């Protein structure tokens, strides 16, 4: 157990809104080893970001952790006070957000915002902090770092700002970097650059990355393991190869069918997943994906499928697997 950097077990989290309880996370379990890249994929509202924020103790107001344990780098996150959390945020675990255009404070210089983290978490002198800030900007591939430090966010492009965000996140060499859709708001060419930079820095600094995205292309190229989330559940977990070549959950299969492929024939149509995401205020009793699944059976509507392991790291919860197993056993 302890060889995991991140270990989330049976996490349940709800938002208590005026309309009722929104069950954002239902029994989420996964682990990340040091230096590993875990991709979390799923559509909007599936609980990807909520999982990440809860790990940093940043769950937004009406949200409440209802059960499960969250361990990170020897800390039991559940039991930590806000004051203790502040010591590890930005130091042992950092996050970069989706929209670099709005993630930096517009009224302070880049330098101010980088130095701020260093001042908070290290005992470095002023000169050392300045030197480190320059070094960080060089690390994330920003030219003329001295000049950039004096500039304001609005004077830089989106790609540059995301590099700055990465520099801020990496300032104290965290053990874990959470990337919450880091490329969604960027141009495609810039996206590739940013992803490349993240992988390069991961190799250089040896941190683990939790990559939250809805872009399967991103996870395919970067991640060691992938967790597929749907309606607050991890419906399938496995290595990147497992997910792409041996998907076991109907939702994962649907996702993979819905992305364009290099080897597809001309005029071949993409297959979208029909329907809309489930209403999290009134989640269905059975499998959350049942209403959109074209292989839906009676039992799917009644009961949640048990988790079935296909290998040490590959597991999924789908009744289709149960059925296949039974049929296989009968033969």
């Amino acid at each position, binding site marked *: 157990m302890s060889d995991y950097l991140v270990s989330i077990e049976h996490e349940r989290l709800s938002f208590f809104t005026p309309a009722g309880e929104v069950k954002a996370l239902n029994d989420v379990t996964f682990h990340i080893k040091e230096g590993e890249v875990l991709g979390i994929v799923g559509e909007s509202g599936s609980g990807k970001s909520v999982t990440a924020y809860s790990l940093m103790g940043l769950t937004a107001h009406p949200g409440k952790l209802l059960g499960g344990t969250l361990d990170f780098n020897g800390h039991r996150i559940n039991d930590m006070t806000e004051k203790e959390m502040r010591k590890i945020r930005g130091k042992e675990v950092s996050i970069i*957000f989706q929209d670099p255009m709005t993630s930096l404070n517009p*009224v302070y210089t880049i330098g101010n915002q980088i130095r701020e983290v260093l001042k908070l978490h290290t005992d470095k002198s002023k000169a050392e902090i300045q030197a480190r800030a320059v070094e960080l900007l060089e690390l994330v591939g920003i030219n003329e770092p001295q000049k950039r430090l004096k500039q304001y966010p609005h004077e830089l492009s989106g790609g540059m700002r995301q590099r700055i965000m990465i520099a801020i996140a990496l300032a104290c060499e965290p053990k874990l970097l959470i990337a919450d859709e880091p490329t969604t708001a960027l141009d495609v060419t810039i996206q590739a650059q940013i992803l490349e930079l993240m992988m390069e820095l991961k190799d250089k600094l040896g941190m683990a990355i939790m990559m939250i995205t809805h872009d399967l292309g991103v996870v395919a190229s970067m991640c060691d393991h992938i967790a597929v989330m749907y309606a607050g559940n991890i419906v399938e977990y496995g290595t990147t190869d497992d997910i792409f070549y041996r998907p076991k959950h109907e939702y994962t299969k649907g996702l993979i069918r819905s992305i364009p492929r290099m080897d597809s024939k001309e005029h071949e149509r993409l297959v979208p997943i029909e329907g809309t995401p489930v209403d999290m205020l009134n989640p269905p009793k059975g499998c959350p994906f049942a209403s959109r699944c074209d292989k839906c059976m009676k039992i799917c509507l009644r009961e949640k499928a048990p988790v079935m392991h296909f290998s040490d790291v590959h597991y999924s919860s789908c009744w289709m697997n149960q059925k296949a197993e039974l049929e296989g056993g009968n033969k």
Partner: protein
Amino acid sequence: MAKYIAKRLGMAVVTIWLVATLTFFLMNLVPGGPFLSEKAVSPKALEALEAKYGLDKPLHEQYITYMKDALHGDFGDSLKQRGRTVSSIITSKFPVSAKIGGLAVLVAFFVGVPLGCVSALHRGKVTDNIIIVIATCGIAVPSFVICTLLMYTLGVKLGWLPTLGLGTWKHYIMPIIALAFYPTAYITRLMRSSMLDVLGQDYMRTSKAKGLSQFVCLFKHALRNAILPVVTYLGPLLAYTVSGSFIVEKIFSIPGLGREFISSITNRDYTVIMGTTIFLATLMVLMNVVVDIVYKLVDPRIKLK
């Protein structure tokens, strides 16, 4: 920057000229005149008076004469307060109003901003509700009601504060509270909504994710962004408030400019109307330039062109 200020001041001159011109003609359109209200003025005397002040000449001639004199800094004599020039009225009355008004704006700023922040941070809780109710009252209740209530409670019933005039520092308390009431309430509401907006911004999430304490998040990252709408409001507010309030000055018997302003209109004291209006317009325009410059200092994204 210097170029910008020069440009703005040039525009200010045009604005003030427009205000002066409009006021001059509108004022003369209103029926009545400075000497009509007094009883038993013989037609002969009236003619003599009008001739003395040049009111018998055609309007455009009066306008040209007034503008020429004004450009030379001569705003004429009061038509009603015999023997006093408009300039001397403004220079003697303005400091009184400015002192009370300036203090009231300070109070409004230093009470309204923290109240708005507290309210935003406790959104939806009891503290927030209490502040919102008080602020709404502050906006809805007219100042003469507040003046009277203050006088009745603090002055008459409790006997803590003197009710009339401006003798000691104690005399200043009630007028300042009365003047500050509305702007405090307004700033509180302004600050609350802009703070709520800022607290929901992505960079606030970033500052939290850095591990900064709530205090630093709030005072360093949120406040500077959230205060911008208040700065905008502060300019015109300052201009209005330092130039005096008719109601507050009347009720507390304060010899300020606000009273002069209103009574000159009811008296058709043309020269005083012109003088005080031009003075207020100048103040207003200057304050707006100052606000723009402060704006630029607070938010580097703003470009002064």
